[in-house]
């Protein structure tokens, strides 16, 4: 699965640690999400969508 996490984070000038704190996960998890090494669970995907105030499908897309 592809995602726009890095772009969205860059637009807000947030570090990985900043985003990790808002999502309640480790910085390593944010890094793994951004590099495509880990696909989030549905609850985490919803939290990500809430943090960026965007629908899930505009953040995550199929390969």
């Amino acid at each position, binding site marked *: 699965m592809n995602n726009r996490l890095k772009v969205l*984070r*860059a637009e*807000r*000038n*947030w*570090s*990985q*640690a*900043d985003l*990790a*704190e808002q999502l*309640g*996960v*480790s*910085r*390593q*998890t944010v*890094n*793994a999400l951004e*590099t495509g*090494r*880990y696909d*989030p*669970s549905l609850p*985490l995907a919803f939290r990500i969508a809430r943090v960026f105030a965007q629908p899930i499908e505009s953040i995550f897309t199929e390969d």
Partner: protein
Amino acid sequence: MNASLETPRTSLLRKAALFVFLGLLGGFVGYGVSILMGDIQTIWQDELAVLMSVVTIATGLIGAFVVATRPSTVPKGCGILQVVVMLLAGTMLLLPMFGTAVATPEVIFGAVVILLVLQSTANLMLWRTADEMLRRVMLETSAMAFWALQLCLFVYAAAERLGLVDTVSGWGLMGILMGVYFIASIIAAARRGLH
């Protein structure tokens, strides 16, 4: 919010300090093991257990160094719990081999059981504290280790039943289990970019 988009890269000085720390750690561990094992006629099962214990304790100490130098608030307490789990596991492996020099086998066995309860509690707390990716890594480690070990156990058991190989003691099997689990954890962590 932090203006930096990327997590700050580790400075050269900090990297050098880490290498010095690891070098000193390796030196102390090597010296300690040579003192402990110097005059003892060892069997491979004990050598494997010592190796796994040293690797586990060293990993725990490196984890402690990382927690101290790059503290993370999320997930809260996760790093410290990982360190505790590693150090207790390494100590538990050493006790049956070297503990009898200072206490009776019954006392040492009691100490091992107490440490096992503490370590299991810390492991459970770690599971409850961890975020979803760390839990996934733990699950994948367990699955990989189980698959590899049950495969190897079957092959070994069949060969042993046929009288083709010697019997391996429970202590030896424990050392092998620890080794396989450690390799599985490295693979599972590397797949998620954890290092």
